[in-house]
């Protein structure tokens, strides 16, 4: 933890994510116009940034800053649920496939390879399109698309510790395979899973925003960041703030997760020297 806080970029990442969580939790209190999520005031539409509306107003006259704050809730919700689901599916698959060395584990890895053969956004689009635009469908599409990443990672890591002496010792002492996997293998590979999950959260947010941008996200008037950017396109070049603000929010949040992930890797993995910045 100390090492993490000493790392400047990790610290920046941590601050950004803390800010995001605060925005999401206290959106109702922080937003200057909390009612603007689903009401409109046409006389105030498309106003530029000012002391009243920090990021201007949108086509419905709603305060963009307030909508962004409520959008943070949605972003966290989608990213956390989708990523957790992917971890919950991917980690056991990778553990089992990596621990045993038989036909079944080959099959598991082949299946995840097939999923990895399709670019994530394409598969997510295909699934989201067939299921229809709704929050839970976006989450489902993202979890189906992303679990193989964790399966692959955990598989490779499990393979590499499988023949270590401490695993052998546990087996020799009569520990059941389940016990060995959960109590001995999992803790020793946890750090790379944590790092991957942190960076994965950022990736999920990007794909979720792209789905929203293409009209496959939750329907209006949900303040989804990607959809807000799509809406703004009609009003360019005049209402530049309308497009700029939500994208800036996405950029900041994804950058926060990526920086924290990089910092965690440096802190958790003593093998990598500082500044080595391995990808």
């Amino acid at each position, binding site marked *: 933890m100390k090492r993490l806080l000493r790392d400047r970029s990790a610290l920046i990442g941590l601050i950004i994510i803390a800010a995001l969580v605060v925005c999401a939790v206290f959106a109702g209190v922080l937003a200057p116009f909390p009612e603007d999520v689903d009401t409109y005031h046409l006389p105030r539409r498309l106003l530029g940034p000012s002391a009243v509306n920090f990021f201007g107003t949108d086509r419905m006259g709603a305060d963009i800053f307030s909508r962004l704050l409520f959008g943070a809730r949605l972003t966290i919700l989608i990213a956390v649920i989708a990523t957790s689901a992917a971890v919950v599916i991917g980690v056991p698959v990778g553990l089992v496939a990596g621990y045993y060395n038989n036909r079944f584990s080959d099959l598991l890895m082949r299946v995840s390879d097939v999923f990895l*053969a399709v670019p994530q956004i394409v598969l997510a689009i295909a699934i989201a399109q067939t299921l229809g635009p709704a929050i839970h469908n976006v989450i489902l599409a993202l979890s189906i698309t992303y679990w193989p990443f964790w399966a692959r990672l955990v598989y490779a890591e499990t393979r590499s510790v499988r023949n270590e002496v401490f695993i052998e010792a546990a087996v020799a002492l009569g520990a059941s395979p389940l016990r060995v996997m959960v109590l001995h293998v999992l803790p020793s590979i946890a750090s790379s899973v944590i790092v991957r999950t942190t960076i994965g959260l950022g990736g999920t947010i990007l794909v979720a925003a792209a789905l929203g941008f293409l009209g496959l996200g939750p329907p209006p008037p949900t303040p989804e960041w990607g959809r807000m950017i799509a809406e703004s396109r009609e009003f360019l070049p005049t209402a530049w703030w309308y497009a700029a603000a939500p994208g800036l929010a996405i950029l900041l949040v994804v950058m926060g997760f990526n920086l924290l992930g990089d910092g965690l890797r440096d802190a958790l993995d003593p093998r990598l020297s500082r500044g080595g910045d391995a990808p």
Partner: protein
Amino acid sequence: MALIARRCLWMPPTLFGLLLIVFTVSHVIPSDPARVMAGENASADQVAAIRHQYGLDLPLPLQFLHYVEGVVTGDMGISLYTQRPVAEDLVARLPATMELALYAMVLAIVAGVPLGVVAALRRNSWLDHFVRVVTVAGLAMAAFWLAILLQLLFSMWLGLTPVQGRIDGWGPDPITGFFTVDAVLLGDWATLGQALRHLILPTLTLALPAVATIVRFTRAGMINVMSSNFVFYQTAMGIPRRRIVWKYLLRAALIGTLTQIGLIFGNLIAGAVVVETVFDWPGLGSFAVNSILHSDYSAVMSFTVFAGVVFILTNLAVDIAQTLLDPRGR
């Protein structure tokens, strides 16, 4: 060599699995394609007729076999929206996407490798920090947002580049389908200039995450090999520094980057979905999005299969290149 042979052998099962996923996604869904095709006012008889015509009344496994047979023989079904064979549409739009993706790939390599090398050589200099900020931002930026900002700045405010499209009016007579190549072959310099001007913004947008990835891997690879024994040995042998860096070091460092290039090319095709939509680029990506908007499921599925095949093939190519480049693998 054995490794490559094994990879090739794995291709058919992987493709089969890919088709199975795509088929499952498209068929185990509540919506009824026959009803969509027949239109909203169709009678039950008409829907049934269409269902029979397209073989949708057959049991699912049989439908799947028909589907696989179709894809293998190049028949991907009829687009519900354009009423043309999907395979024809895909082939017609392929050059636009390939031209864009290849320019982005070239830009990513030409900009990314030297930046990565220089950042590694001058570690913790201002240049290194600057490159790091750019790569971190480049990987965190939503492509569609960057595209819109570039349009706003260069097209709408400064008026330097066209807002959208691949060319004004008709393109050059198709020879390769790549407008820039065709224009050169025909000696049509005005068209070449125009095609290039249209290419600038989409290429930049598509290339930025790729540049960032290549920089990171090249930098990390360089730092990794810089401390290895052979560099020490070569320095001791009096081989010029420049030659060590740009020949031996780079070759060793690029092996890691190369693994990424396969992934990157696949990501470029995927990124094209979003980038082409914003720039109204008449390629596969905007085709896929249009199909989505018209619930044209056979077109969406075909694009998914196509992207998967490109992904698998590039990864295979990377595996082969890697074996050739890494002397230890020979």
